[in-house]
């Protein structure tokens, strides 16, 4: 399966954020989306998640047989940088509800308690209303959504920055474990995290997407090379 972005453009007023961004993302790989502040990473993710449509261009999913179809909202699991959860529910109730509306999609047979154990929400917290959850706990609840629903495309907007070191390590392992069945795209400003976790790095710079040579990701010059690329002026070869 592939996720294909074709010439995506998006303007806000006179500012053109995405200028014909195109890329093909493959299943079974974790992609790190890097870009400077205001480069349009969150805009791209919002367009992919259907929060708002792009001005032009298309998002398609291509199956193993080469058959293409437009990306549907249900295909995407999105973990927002500022997590939002229905605060009038407890963590346990949210997981129960979410499992029920996704009945049949999760073959694991886990109960709500099993899922909450998996992301480290302890027994006392899972019966508390989510309005009292910390940023990190809300983020975990959002992550549970895609763990349960298993959408083909998973978007994570700076997801691990609010986790403590233990939770971050657990989530990293979880992402690596589940990547075979998904296309995972996550944005971050932490180059070390990108290098550790990602199979490929994609830069969003001057409104277009470009791949960083995968062979340099685990080399000492990776950081300098990414910074160099992100500092390049528009139109520079």
């Amino acid at each position, binding site marked *: 399966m592939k996720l294909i972005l074709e010439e995506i453009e998006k303007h806000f*007023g*006179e*500012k053109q954020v995405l200028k014909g961004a195109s890329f093909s993302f493959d299943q079974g790989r974790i992609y790190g989306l890097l870009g400077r502040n205001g480069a349009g990473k969150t805009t791209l993710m919002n367009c992919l*998640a*259907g*929060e708002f449509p792009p001005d032009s261009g298309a998002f398609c999913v291509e199956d193993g047989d080469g058959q293409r179809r437009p990306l549907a*909202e*249900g295909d*995407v*699991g*999105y973990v*927002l940088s500022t997590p*939002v*959860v*229905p*605060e*009038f*529910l407890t963590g346990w*109730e949210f997981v*129960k*509800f979410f499992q*029920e*509306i996704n009945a049949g999609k999760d073959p694991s047979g886990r109960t709500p308690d099993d899922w909450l154990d998996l992301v480290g929400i302890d027994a006392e917290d899972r019966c508390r*209303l989510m309005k009292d959850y910390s940023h990190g706990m809300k983020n975990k609840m959002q992550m549970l*959504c895609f763990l349960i*629903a298993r959408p083909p495309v998973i978007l994570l907007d700076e997801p691990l920055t609010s986790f403590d070191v233990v939770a971050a390590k657990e989530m990293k392992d979880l992402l690596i474990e589940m990547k075979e069945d998904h296309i995972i795209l996550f944005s971050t400003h932490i180059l070390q995290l990108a290098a550790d976790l990602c199979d490929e790095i994609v830069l969003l710079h001057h409104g277009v997407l470009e791949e960083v040579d995968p062979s340099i990701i685990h080399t000492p010059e990776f950081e300098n090379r990414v910074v160099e690329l992100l500092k390049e002026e528009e139109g520079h070869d």
Partner: protein
Amino acid sequence: MIKDVRNVFRVQSAMSCNRFLFWLKKIPLIRRMFPDRLYAASAGKQRLMAAVEALKILGAFAGKFVYLFLCCLLPAMLIREDLGTAGLWQHFLTALFFLSFFGGAFLQSNILTASLVKYTCVRQMGMSARASLAATAGWMHLLTFVTFTPALMVFAALFGSGWWAGLLLSVQMAAFRVLGEFFHVWMWSRGEKQPGKSFWYIAAVTVLALAGAYVPLLLPEALPMERFLFNPAVYIASVGCGAWAGIWLLRYPHYQALVWKTCRAENVSTAAARQNAAQAAFKDVQMKDSDLAAEDAGGRVAAMKGYAYLNGLFFLRHRRLLNKPVKYALGVVAAAVLAGLAGVLFAREAMAGLMAEFPVRFLPIFVFIMYLICNTLGQRICKAMFYNCDIALLRYGWYRERKVLLRNFTIRLGQVAKRNLLVAAAICVGTAAVTLAAGAPLTGALALFCLAVLSLAVFFSVHPLFLYYIFQPYTAQLAVKNPFFGILNWVIYFVCWMCLQIKQPTSVFTLLVVACTIAYSAVALAVVWGRAEKTFRIK
């Protein structure tokens, strides 16, 4: 110091210009003439800044003429048609003294008022507070003096007192304004007191100023204000005190601390102010901790599944908020029924006659009454759903899918209708009870009346929910962005009001109401199925 003052002026001017540009860009036909690049410091912006400042100053000059005419002269002309020029001049001076010398000077302080310019220049850019206050408060007082002077000179000349009297008044007013600033800063220096923030102080000054300005119009004789203001001793004393206060203010050594303490981000940030206002607009649907302990009687909700479970928990935990208007409505119905029964006790005959024709005479009015009761409840429920549930879940793609939207719409419609039907049923039972007590017959018209009222309860359950799903008006920041939401509500309000004029037999009216309800419900379900996927989103 002079360099700092100039910089503060520049910041202030750029802010005004940016605000002006922002609003120009909101005007549909001309917005294209003002591209974003104008925000950048350019020759175009410099010209626009100069134009904005010139406009502000011109506006200030013109505004003083308008103010003096509307507030100081017109009330006297309208209330006391018997007054000659001399009497009008006395009342003009009285209003001027109480409104501008007293109220304008003592109500608020320019120095202590938090402003974005002071916050930016002093707290963020590290400029001197004295320079910042000179460029803000000092400039405001200078501008007030300069712009009041020609207006007062013209009015004084017109009243035959000579232009120089206007000039003298303007100087005296400036002295009072400086005294007002002195009072506020002196209070601040005595333990950081800010009378300008006290409701009681503001109310007292306002009432005194208004009463002083306009109550004398009711007296047979005008106050001898000209003699008082131009009395050499009073004049010299007031201007002398003003000059002394001005020197005290110039020498005050703690302006830096004053600005740091009075200008805080939450006082000056427009975004914070907007957010606070938006939060306040949703205050009536905010949950309390005690709401969350609502008991799931018999485990009914726990036994539900999926979206029924989600909505079950929502309505369980918002029971207090959502049932409150129902309780009020039931209370009003109970009071009306009791009043009817009391009427039966005292005037049975008249009540029997009234109740016999009640369904025919009053059914059109019930369209309006049911609108007020049910639509209010429906809107409150929609607001609560947005604030406590949808604002979060609409960020998830699966929640915006067509079948999910229709499922939630129907569940919620059931919940809203249940509450409205309870009120409608109480109206029907109450009407029947009073009819029976009065000894009037329970006729077919009464049955039709009840059918129409129950039907209206359903109609006005569908209506707010339908509008909410199709014109979802709220933004993530809780502002209302879709004007159609309000306009359509007004249209329905107007139609309901027009129903008061309908003169039709009960059977025809009821048939019309039932048909409208069925048609509206069907259209609402079809449109929600077809369109809500696109429309029910966070703006």
